């Protein structure tokens, strides 16, 4: 009952957040509409600025024209592997090695020497076959978070070895309650007695999402990358949950998908496609939820910043006035995002655990089954 209450509470919070997310998207849309009219006049383009910040890039933008170049690794079956610094592109103004940047995407060009990118001819057939393994901004942030995670958790593991059977201390006492939380309130309650096998994945997913969410809130390098608000990241995580669910599913689970017991034949024609769709819909929703929540958080923060510049272009006074209000809202949003950072990590892990739990669950009572379904429907 206690767990049910927590889940209901969390789903309520999620619903409560929906207006914020939609508000952010609205403000973003209105900003881009407003700014498309003023594209020619080199004015501040909020929509473009926000989209640039939340999407991936081949360099780490610091300020103005300063940018940390990142390695470009691109493979083409015809040209082979090329590795060079993104600094050679000069912010997309020149070609290098037969490649150029077009809206932060690498495209192949016919000119092999360094020329002006604006006059280069794009080779469409080569571009279609490109494999871009570049260390982009998000890949770099991913590596940073990986190193951070390995450092944090191996050092925590070490303190368990040096101080066995003692109360946690330092970093250990920050991490331990979270591990116990994932173990007891996520894995044990959602999966049941077979939870131990799935603990490494759930813990890794939880801390990966949480740490990257938090890093995304820090505006300075190496934070500030919108990693968990990138669809590629959330897709990878959701697909891993799907793969684990599918590979650990028992006969009972498949039976409930393909031939729900106690249901007339003609209903099955309707129900089975829905169940099969549901199998893929669940990880899809996992992917969209994390992506949308984190991207929205960045969009909201950037929107408040944009407001300052939009009003600043009208008059310095308006910019100042709006700046104060924007700053207050940004502080509020950052606190909210701190909560969301944890909440989204928790929700992703909990739902993954629930899906895995449904897949490994032994034959259960019908009423219980009904409860679980209702709960799941509520949370989605």
């Amino acid at each position, binding site marked *: 009952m206690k767990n049910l209450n927590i889940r209901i509470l969390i789903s309520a919070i999620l619903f409560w957040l929906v207006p914020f997310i939609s508000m952010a998207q609205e403000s973003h849309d209105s900003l881009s509409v407003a700014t498309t009219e003023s594209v020619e006049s080199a004015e501040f383009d909020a929509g473009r600025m926000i*989209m640039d910040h939340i999407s991936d890039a081949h360099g780490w933008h610091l300020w103005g024209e300063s940018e940390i170049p990142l390695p470009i690794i691109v493979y083409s079956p015809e040209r082979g592997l090329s590795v060079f610094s993104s600094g050679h592109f000069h912010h997309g103004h020149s070609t290098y090695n037969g490649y150029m940047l077009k809206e932060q995407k690498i495209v192949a060009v016919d000119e092999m020497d360094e020329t002006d990118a604006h006059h280069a001819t794009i080779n469409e057939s080569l571009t279609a076959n490109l494999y871009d393994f570049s260390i982009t901004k998000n890949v770099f942030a991913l590596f940073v978070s990986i190193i951070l995670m390995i450092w944090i958790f191996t050092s925590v*593991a070490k303190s368990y070895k040096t101080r066995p059977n003692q109360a946690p201390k330092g970093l250990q006492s920050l991490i331990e309650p979270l591990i116990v939380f994932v173990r007891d309130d996520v894995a044990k309650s959602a999966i049941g007695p077979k939870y131990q096998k799935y603990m490494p994945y759930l813990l890794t997913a939880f801390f990966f999402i949480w740490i990257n969410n938090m890093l995304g809130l820090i505006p300075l390098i190496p934070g500030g990358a919108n990693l968990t608000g990138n669809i590629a990241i959330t897709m990878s995580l959701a697909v891993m949950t799907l793969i684990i669910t599918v590979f650990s599913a028992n006969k009972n689970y498949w039976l409930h998908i393909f031939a729900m017991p106690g249901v007339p034949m003609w209903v099955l024609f309707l129900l089975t496609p829905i169940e099969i769709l549901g199998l893929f819909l669940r990880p899809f929703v996992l992917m969209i939820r994390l992506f949308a929540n984190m991207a929205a958080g960045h969009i909201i923060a950037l929107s408040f910043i944009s407001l300052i510049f939009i009003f600043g272009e009208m008059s310095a006074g308006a910019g100042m006035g709006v700046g104060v209000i924007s700053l207050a809202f940004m502080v509020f949003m950052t606190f909210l995002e701190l909560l969301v950072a944890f909440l989204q990590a928790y929700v992703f892990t909990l739902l993954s655990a629930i899906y895995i739990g449904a897949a490994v669950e032994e034959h259960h009572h019908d009423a219980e089954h009904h409860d679980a379904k209702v709960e799941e429907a509520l949370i989605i």
Partner: protein
Amino acid sequence: MELLKPAFGLTFWMVLGFLIVLFLLTKFAWKPILNALNERDKSIEDALNAAIKAKDEMANLKSDNEKLLAEARQERDKILKEARVTKDNIINEARDKATAEADRLLTLAREGIHNEKMAAITDLKNQVALLSVEIAEKIMKQQLADDGKQKALVADLLKDVKMN
């Protein structure tokens, strides 16, 4: 919309990186941490159980002690009672014995006294007889010293004889 298209390169690095993290952390972090947590949970549980057991044992020990004490007290009372009985018995016995002895002695004494008395009486009787004879002899001797008197006596005696 470009934002909703997963980039190939990022997906590649993400899957690779995540799997490496998953592998390394499983081996070097999650397993040791979870094992340590389980171990600690177990040791706490064991300690609690041991404390409960110790408490029970203490209670048992206390009740045992009380039982022992009660038993000892009972034993003491029993021994005291027995001693009292034995003492009474000994005293009574001694008293009886002494009484019996005294009685015996008294009887003996009484018998002795009686015997002595009887002997004395017999002796006295003999003495008296002897004395009487002697006295009689002396008296006879005196009275028969002159003839007159002898004749008177004889006459007296004869008188008696005649009367018989």
